[in-house]
């Protein structure tokens, strides 16, 4: 597993997709590939209130990434130092095996290059001490980046506050 964690606080997410756009512009991607995406489900009625879910889907940078195992050319790689999974375009032949292998649909097809793009946690930014584009630009600060120990205990704190206010 990557040593990093992208935590989405769904309660704050408004499904605005600023993360998607920032991710694409940082990678210089045009129409098609979305290395991260927010999927809106709903709204649907829950009692008298309409509710919707806004689910943030980047790459989860698995411990044993199926995409890396499936890649026949060694293009899909995992950084030994932090477990970030990324694709080396110079080795990618566009066979799409990684896209088939990933249970989450994280590897994305880049029609201009005929190769795959994916969330690389903006490792160039991370190496400079910055947050990934999605977590930097998120319009409501609902995407948190860090090691799991660094992510604030948002849900516990909110629950405690809600109880205290009752």
């Amino acid at each position, binding site marked *: 597993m990557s040593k990093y964690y992208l935590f989405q606080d769904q309660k*704050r997410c*408004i*499904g*605005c*997709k*600023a993360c*998607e*756009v*920032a991710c*694409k*512009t*940082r990678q210089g991607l*045009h*129409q098609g590939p979305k290395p991260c995406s927010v999927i809106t489900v*709903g*709204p649907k*009625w829950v009692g*008298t*209130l*309409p*509710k*919707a879910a806004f689910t943030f889907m980047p790459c989860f940078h698995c411990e044993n990434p199926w995409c890396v195992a499936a890649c026949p050319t060694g293009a899909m790689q995992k950084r030994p130092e932090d477990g970030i999974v990324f694709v080396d375009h110079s080795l990618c032949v566009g066979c799409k095996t990684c896209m088939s292998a990933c249970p989450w649909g994280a590897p994305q097809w880049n029609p201009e290059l005929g190769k795959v793009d994916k969330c690389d946690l903006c490792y160039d930014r991370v190496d400079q001490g910055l*947050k990934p*584009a999605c977590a*930097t*630009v*998120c*319009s*409501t*600060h609902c995407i948190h980046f860090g090691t799991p120990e660094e992510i604030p205990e948002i849900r516990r704190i*909110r629950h405690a*506050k*809600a109880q205290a*206010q009752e």
Partner: protein
Amino acid sequence: MNEDTTLVGKEKLMREEVYSLCFMCSVRCPIKVTVENGQVTFLEGSPHVPDMAGSLCPKGAAGIGLLNDDQRVQTPLIRSGPRGSGHWRQASWDEALDYVAENMKKIIDSYGPQSITLGERQQLSTHISKTFLKALGSPNHFTHDALCKGSVNTACRSLFGYTDGQMNVDYKNTKHLVLYGRNVFESVTVKGTNQIMQAMDNGAKLTYIDPRVTVTATKANRYLPIRPATDLALNYALMHVILKEDLYDRSFVHKWVQGLDELKNFVNSFTPEWAEQETGIKAKEIVDLAREISRDKPKVIFHYGYRGAHHANEIYLRRSILILNCLMGSVETPGGIYFKKGPGEVGGKPARKLVDQDLPKPEAIRFDKAGTPDFPLPDPAHGVAQYLPQAILNEDPYPIKCLFAYRLDPLMSMPDTQTTLKALEKLDLVVAIDINYSDIAWYADVILPESTYLERTDCVQQANSLKPQMFLRQQAVSPRYDTKPGPMILKGLADRLGIGQYFPYNSVEELVQWQLEPTGFSIDDFKAKGFVSYTDKQIFWDREKDLKLKTKSGKIEFTSSLLEEAGFKSFPEYKTPQIPDKDNEFRLVVGRCVFHTHVSTQNNPYLNEILSENCLWINDRAAARLGIADQDMVEVRSPVNSGLIKAKVTNMIQPGAVFMLHGFGHQAQAARRSFNRGVSDAMLQENISDTIGGSPAFHDTFVTVHKVN
């Protein structure tokens, strides 16, 4: 600006950070622009501004898409075929400006300077275009404001003597926020969105009122699916309960309000039970809301609206919302609404504006007659944009022969596009100052392409608020194409028209230095963070002693001298809004989404990829009755036009209304991603106005819908 290296040629090498202001919409969020080898490589919200802290909305994040778009206007263009044919010849700036100036001279010689009009979306350089028209002797500068919120402006003046632009709300400290279709989580301001999130994390309640479920509705603690056009009835009933049960802030109201007894008498008959019949909201819910809100007073906000252009009685709806705030005492207090403070509050001086010069006073009245006895109350500083087509067609009050459309598209922003087109046909000269191939640019005789916000410095933003500040939009990269900043385009014309003396600058940077002279700040003071502050402390006036109200009485005028002296009532008789009288007839309701700004971003490659087309929301039961299934193509027909659009069948909208997003259905072919995608709401809307407040009534058009095969 933090540079890693030096200037070589026009581009800076390596990496630098420029603090600036976004301009993907009109909110002006402070941003940090990362530039590497002359290319913008990253955009983020300014880390130095609280509640931004990196955040951007998707439009802001898509700024690079605008900058590098090869489908925007790349050089000055002069029309070479019939209007709207898309036949252009490229021109040099000298040639294009000569052409425009010569044609303007002919028009002025024949018809006088008042025949020249200029409409724009209010922006940082608006004082330049106002100066341009005044120097010519024309009163006919108008902004897009009336189309958005003219009646909100008038309502605010009728109660406080301040315009809506001189007021704001303190989301962060509020305990209960009530929104009437103010869709804060889709029609976003980044700071505001974060402040509301913080307030909600601290336990604030959100009540959302709208005939349609929006993202904001999905985040609300209470959602009231109101019958379309009946918000006023809801508010009168809320007032009824608040006054009957003594739930109002007595000390604040007795100190500051004029006309409480008149209000009491007026709302006496508007019971919650009556309002239930009008609005479809249960009487008990209305009573509960009034009681619950009053427990949190004065830290409550009834939001008076961003867009306030829905109905012909708009001014009275906006007044009713503001009056509810006054009853709660939530005026000039943390967590309520407040008046913006300028630098004078702390002994500072504002930046100069070009209009501060001694300029000639135009002799003619405005084309829209705003500020005359014929149309006394709309703010003449903005005018009434939607009156332009009839003024041109009827030559009333005089012939109009030239229109500059500066970042404003009358074809897609004003109601009834066909009539607007007929009016434009009567003009001798149509000039578009625009970045994109908007529909009006496509129609124009000449396009003068403006540089994007990332390619130019702009005039100073005087950011009055609880803490007065100034912000500066600073150039990050050189123009990608042969474009210029607006102030340089207008100066180029002014020099050719013999009014160059009013434009004493050779670059926008020089203009900014001139603006800053009295302030004690210099342009270099903006480099580090993009803004300067006059004070570190929030300023609230002492509401026990002096609210500094600017009304005639010095009070908050429930009984308004502004209205009554102009011959209008403070509390006119309530009329039940028209309801559809045929099975397939609906009230057409429009709105915004988070992915697009008005009519200007639909061709942005990133935003177009997310949403390229609008659809027609229709209630599922109504659709079933008409045999319409989700995704069916339907014809939507209004009294002025019709269009084909996909239906979105949903139980998330009230049966009496259909809804579509504003800003789609572009007709400019050069903007290939947005061309002919979806239907333009402006094309369907009738040109109906609130004739007191000045807004168009965008939600007072009724349409019929039927399935097409």
